[in-house]
C-alpha cells in the first residue's frame, strides 16, 4: 500500500475544486495547474500549490502531457488525478504518469486504451454478454463506408467520436442527405476536442432514456456497482439534469444493469471509479453505450444517495486499499437531483455566455450542495467548457428533492453572464418532468412550454423592480454629478435578439 502525500490535479474548474477539497479532508497536499487564463481561478485558490502550464488554449496547457508531468516532478507530487475531460481518458497520459513513477488515479493505461476506445469497449461488452446498440464495432474512416454502414443499420443513426465523451463530436443524422455535413462537423469537433477525428456509427433509438451505472473496483478483484443515475435531460447530447434513483428503473432492471456493469468491469480488469452508460428503450431494454474510465461530472448525485465520497474512494483504490464494503452493504437512500449550471443562454440555442461574474449568490439550507468552480468578481473564460457549478439536492423522496431543487434554483442568482438556471426552473416545474416522464427528447419535445414568456405577476414585478431601480439611479446620479451614470456593459441580449433563433 502506498500512502499518497501530494496529488497533482490535472484539471480546472469545479472538478479541480472538488478534488482539492477531498485532498484537504484526507490531509493530502494538492497541486493545481493553471493556464494563463486561469491564474485567478478558484481551483488555484483552493489548492496548496500551483504551477503555470502555458497559454489559455487547452491544447497549449491542460492538454500538454509534458508540462503537466514537469509540474508534478517540480512539486514532488506522487500522484495525478485527471478529473474528467482534458486528459482523463487519454491512455498516453496515463502511461506517461506510470513511466514517470507517478500514481495515476484511474485505471491502468491499457484499460483506458481498451475501454476509452469506444469500439473496442463495445466488442468487449458483447463478449461479456452485455447487449449493445446496433452499430459499427470499428471506427469508419471514409464517407462512402460511413454511408454504407448507415444504410445497413438504417437511419436515423448517431455519429460518434471514437475517442469521445461529453457530447463532443456527436451528431444525430436523420437521413442520408445530412450525413456528409454531419460527419464533417463531428470530425472537426472530435479533432479539436480529443485530437482524434475518427468516427463510428450507432442506430439511434426512439425516445430512449440515458441511464448509467456507477461502478467501483479495487486492485484485489473486488468490484461493486453503486446504482444508477438517470441522465435523460440533455441539450446538444450533453446532460444538464441528472437524478438518482431513476424514476424509470424498476428494482429488477436495476439489479440486471448492475450485474451487467460488474460483469463488464471484471472482464476488463478495471480498477478505479467508472461509469457505464446505457440507453434504455421504452420496453426497458438496456443497451450498453460506452464506459467512462474516470470520475463523472454528475458523481455527486450518487454520493448524495449512498453517503459515499467517490473522490476519496478513488484515492483509496489508487493507494491499493480494499473497498471497505461489499455489494450487499450498499443502499440508495432518498433521492438526489443535480442541475448543471452552465454559462449559456438557453433562448439562443444554449450559446455559451462567457464573461465577468458581477454577482453570485449560491443557495444554501437543508439538503443543498453547490459544487462551484467560480466566485463573485471572477471570470468565466471563453476557452473552456462553460460549466460553472453543479447544484445538487437531496430529499427523502423524489417529490421532496424536486421541491427542494425548485427552491434552490430560485435562490441562485448570477449576474454578468447568462446561465441555464431560469431554464431549469421551467424544466423542474414542467408537468412531464414532475411526473418523471423524461427521455432524451424532453427538451425538444417541450420546447414551447420551456421557452414560454414569464408569468404575468412575475413580469409585472420585474417591470416594477426595473422602473424603481431606474428612478433611484437617476436620483443618485443627480445627487453625485461626478459619478459615472453607468451605461453598463453592452446589452448583449439585445444583440442576440437580432440573431436567428435556432429551430
Amino acid at each position, binding site marked *: 500500500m502506498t500512502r499518497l502525500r501530494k496529488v497533482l490535479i490535472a484539471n480546472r474548474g469545479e472538478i479541480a475544486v472538488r478534488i482539492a477539497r477531498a485532498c484537504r479532508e484526507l490531509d493530502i497536499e494538492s497541486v493545481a495547474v493553471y493556464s494563463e487564463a486561469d491564474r485567478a481561478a478558484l481551483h488555484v485558490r483552493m489548492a496548496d500549490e500551483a504551477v503555470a502550464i502555458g497559454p489559455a488554449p*487547452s491544447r497549449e496547457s491542460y492538454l500538454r502531457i509534458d508540462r503537466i508531468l514537469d509540474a508534478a516532478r517540480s512539486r514532488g507530487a506522487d500522484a495525478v488525478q485527471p478529473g474528467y475531460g482534458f486528459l482523463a481518458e487519454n491512455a498516453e497520459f496515463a502511461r506517461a504518469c506510470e513511466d514517470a513513477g507517478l500514481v495515476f488515479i484511474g485505471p491502468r493505461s491499457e484499460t483506458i486504451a481498451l475501454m476509452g476506445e469506444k469500439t473496442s469497449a463495445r466488442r468487449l461488452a458483447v463478449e461479456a454478454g452485455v447487449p449493445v446498440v446496433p452499430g459499427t464495432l470499428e471506427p469508419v474512416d471514409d464517407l462512402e463506408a460511413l454511408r454504407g454502414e448507415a444504410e445497413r443499420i438504417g437511419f436515423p443513426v448517431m455519429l460518434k467520436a471514437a475517442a469521445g465523451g461529453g457530447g*463532443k463530436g456527436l451528431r444525430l443524422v436523420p437521413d442520408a442527405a445530412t450525413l456528409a455535413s454531419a460527419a464533417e*462537423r463531428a470530425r*472537426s469537433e472530435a479533432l*479539436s*476536442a480529443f485530437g482524434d477525428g475518427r468516427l463510428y456509427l450507432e442506430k439511434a433509438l426512439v425516445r430512449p432514456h440515458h441511464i448509467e451505472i456507477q461502478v467501483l473496483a479495487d486492485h484485489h478483484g473486488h468490484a461493486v456497482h453503486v446504482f444508477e443515475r438517470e441522465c435523460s435531460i440533455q441539450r*446538444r447530447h450533453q446532460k444538464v439534469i441528472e437524478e438518482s434513483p431513476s424514476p424509470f428503473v424498476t428494482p429488477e432492471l436495476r439489479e440486471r444493469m448492475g450485474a451487467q456493469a460488474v460483469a463488464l468491469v471484471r472482464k476488463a480488469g478495471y480498477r478505479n471509479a467508472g461509469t457505464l452508460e446505457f440507453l434504455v428503450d421504452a420496453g426497458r431494454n438496456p443497451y450498453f453505450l460506452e464506459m467512462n474510465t474516470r470520475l463523472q461530472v454528475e458523481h455527486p448525485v450518487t454520493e448524495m444517495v449512498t453517503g459515499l465520497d467517490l473522490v476519496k474512494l478513488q484515492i483509496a483504490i489508487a493507494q491499493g486499499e480494499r473497498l471497505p464494503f461489499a455489494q450487499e452493504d450498499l443502499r440508495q437512500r432518498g433521492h438526489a437531483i443535480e442541475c448543471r449550471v452552465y454559462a449559456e443562454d438557453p433562448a*439562443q*440555442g444554449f*450559446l*455559451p*455566455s*462567457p464573461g465577468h461574474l*458581477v*454577482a453570485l*449568490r449560491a443557495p444554501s439550507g437543508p439538503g443543498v450542495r453547490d459544487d462551484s468552480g467560480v466566485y463573485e468578481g471572477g471570470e468565466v473564460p*471563453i*476557452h*473552456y*467548457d462553460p460549466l460553472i457549478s453543479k447544484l445538487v439536492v437531496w430529499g427523502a423522496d423524489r417529490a421532496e428533492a424536486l421541491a427542494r431543487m*425548485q427552491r434552490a*434554483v*430560485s435562490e441562485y*442568482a*448570477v*449576474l454578468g453572464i447568462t*446561465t441555464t*438556471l*431560469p431554464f431549469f*426552473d421551467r424544466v423542474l416545474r414542467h408537468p412531464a418532468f414532475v411526473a418523471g416522464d423524461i427521455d432524451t427528447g424532453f427538451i425538444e419535445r417541450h420546447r414551447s412550454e420551456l421557452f414560454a*414568456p*414569464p408569468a404575468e405577476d*412575475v413580469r*409585472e*414585478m*420585474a*417591470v*416594477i*423592480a*426595473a*422602473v*424603481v*431601480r*431606474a*428612478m433611484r439611479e*437617476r436620483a443618485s446620479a443627480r445627487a453625485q454629478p461626478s459619478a459615472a451614470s*453607468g*451605461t*453598463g456593459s*453592452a*446589452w*448583449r*441580449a*439585445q444583440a442576440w435578439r*437580432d*440573431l*436567428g*433563433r*435556432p*429551430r
Partner: protein
Amino acid sequence: MIYDAAVDGWTVRAEVRASGEGRYTVRLDGRTVEVDVHDAGPHAISMIADGRAYDAVVERRDGGYRVLLRGQAIEVALMEASRGAVAARRAAGGPARVQAPMPGKLVRVLVRAGEDVGAGQGLVVMEAMKMENEIRAPRAGRVKEAPVREGQAVETGALLVLLE
C-alpha cells in the same frame, strides 16, 4: 417618471413616483401598485407589494435591466416615455445585421454576397468554448455583405452577415 417597458414582446407604460421613504407608487397601464423597496446589497432589492414579498436581483444593461425574480431571468427594456416608444426599436424590415453573439473563431462561412437565404438557414459556424455553434438567418433575405472569412477571430457584436 414615466417609462415604456417591454418584456418579451409585452409592452406596458409604467408611471412611478416616490411616495415616502423607500415607498413608491407605480401605475402600470392604469393599475396602481404600492411598493415598499429596500436595497439589499449592490444588486438585490427586497420589494413588498400588497403584503407579498419579492426578492429581486437587478442588473443594468444597455437599454434596460435584467431582473432575476422567482427563479426567472426577465429582460426589461426600458425607455423614458418622452424619448419615444420602445416599440419603435423593434421595427421589422430594413437591413438585418447578424452579429457575433460572443467572441470566438469562425470555422465556416456558409454564404456569400448576393446569395438568397431562407429564415433559419445557417450563415456561419462559430467556435467558442470548444463548441461549434451555427448562427442562423433571423429572416429570409439576400446577403448584402458577409465581411468575414474562415479562421477569423471575432469579438462580440462584430458584423457577420448583412441581410437586405
